[in-house]
């Protein structure tokens, strides 16, 4: 376990000694800020219109601002996360430091979990930026905190899944651009898999759509924790990390 923390700590430090951490946090802050701005403007305008029209149905901040904002954030995550995961192993392979890790008295799974946790920590730091906007909502409104919490849980699970996939892809190449690009393509594909179900009712189409990452996120953003979504994300994370360990092992055999 100590080894996991050692490697995790080193990864976090690597992110923050390079510009990538700050760049990603800034980009996410900017994009999320824009979402927040747009969503609140729409919300406020809509609210005014409702009042002028004499209607008196209360509008929910959660429904109008937070849910769409978190939904957008999950899409942005798909774009940003490959930038976090691409270097995990590709960089070590290129610079030869992988030899240090693999000839140290450390088990493969300790390396993998350590690196994945390090990347998760980076992702959490990025997500934390969005807390600023959410805090603003709490300062001037009374949103329900429970759907916010589940929404973040969903974002974390979804991020973990994409990171696990990205970690695996990063072990297959020594080129970071290839690792990042491939991860991005795979994530994009996993996102749009859900389209299949919209034009096909067959069971296989439903099964394919089930593998879509984003469809499992939606319930979370609405405040619903469904076991089937939890199971999906957690098993996807396991699958990604398992493939990573197989890939790392095969490195030894292929050299």
């Amino acid at each position, binding site marked *: 376990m*100590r*080894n996991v923390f*050692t*490697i995790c700590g*080193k990864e976090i*430090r*690597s992110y923050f*000694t*390079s510009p990538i951490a700050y760049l990603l946090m800034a980009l996410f802050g900017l994009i999320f800020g824009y979402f927040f701005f747009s969503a609140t403007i729409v919300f406020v305008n809509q609210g005014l219109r409702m009042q002028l029209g004499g209607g008196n149905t209360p509008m929910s901040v959660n429904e109008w601002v937070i849910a769409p904002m978190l939904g957008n954030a999950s899409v942005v995550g798909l774009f940003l996360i490959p930038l976090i995961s691409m270097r995990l192993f590709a960089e070590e392979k290129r*610079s*030869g*430091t*992988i*030899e*240090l*890790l*693999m*000839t*140290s*008295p*450390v*088990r493969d799974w300790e390396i993998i979990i350590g690196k994945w946790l390090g990347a998760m920590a980076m992702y959490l730091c990025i997500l934390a930026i969005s807390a600023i906007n959410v805090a603003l909502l709490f300062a001037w409104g009374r949103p329900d905190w429970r759907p916010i919490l589940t929404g973040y849980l969903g974002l974390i699970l979804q991020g973990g899944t994409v990171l696990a996939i990205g970690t695996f892809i990063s072990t297959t190449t020594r080129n970071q651009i290839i690792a990042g690009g491939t991860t991005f393509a795979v994530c994009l594909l996993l996102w749009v898999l859900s389209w299949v179900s919209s034009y096909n009712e067959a069971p296989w189409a439903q099964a394919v759509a089930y593998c879509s990452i984003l469809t499992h996120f939606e319930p979370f953003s609405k405040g619903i924790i469904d076991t089937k979504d939890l199971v999906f994300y957690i098993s996807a994370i396991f699958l990604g990390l398992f493939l990573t360990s197989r890939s790392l092992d095969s490195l*030894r*055999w*292929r*050299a």
Partner: protein
Amino acid sequence: MIKVEGLTKRYARHVAVNNISFEVGQGEIVGFLGKNGAGKTTTMRVLTCFLPPTSGKASVAGFDVIEQSLEVKKRIGYLPETPPVYPEMEITSYLTFVAKLKGIPGADIAKRVDEVCERTGIGDVKNTIIGKLSKGYRQRVGLAQALIHNPPVLILDEPTSGLDPHQQREARQLIASLSGDHTIILSTHILSEVEQSCSKVIIINNGQIVASDTVANLHHRKGASEQVLVEVSGGPANQIKQALERVAGVASVQSGEGKDGLAAFEVRSLENHAIRPDLARAIVQGGWNLNMLRPMGESLEEIFLELTKSETSADKEKEEEAPAVLQGEAQ
């Protein structure tokens, strides 16, 4: 300390290491010599558990590299060909990271880091970011990394490559100072390095061991026949040649052109004859000037070149003979 038996490593297309066997005793410094691509690095990677062997066995300190790889890894310090450093880290934080990986107890880490910095001569730059260091310093950081857990076995892949002559000497001195406590395998293609710092040499070519012996024994490999280069002035060449041929124990004399028009001769002795004193006397007695008399005992370089000649070379006969003999020695 290190035992390799029938080790073979096959990659998809070619055999990198073919059925090699050798042993290294406690405290020995063994030089791994071979051309690029001869299989040195592959062998080292197997010993450090980075690559598993295709067949055969290897063990370090009694632990098998496959079955008990964690135990092996604890006992090995490894410097790969390119030092495995993270350019964005400072030396101290890098070494602290490695120390943790190698399982050094937290309380001892700072002390060990200071010790290896001192030992490898990077104490004065230890707060520098590794990416800003010169190649020589980076190599030292690599060495420090290999030493941090004070391992009984050190495996150094070309520890002096890319260093300037001054740094090379320092590195060699450092390695020599480590002998005794540590068993060391180092690879190189600098032959003088092996002669200076290694007790034993393993010459490897096309994945096979072609010679495995002490440096002294390799020098005398050719048996007791002596070859001497003589340069003489002050007389007609054929007369001198005849005089040299008359010396007792001389098997053959070949005349050649020396420097500045001097007569030069390559004299080969019969087995078990020391002919140099008699050669000198014969020349002086003939009234000529003896400019040079040099034994042409095979240098390690010549042995190396001969043993690692590619198979397409002209004298294939000799080539096939040598490995067969030396293979016997190796086992």
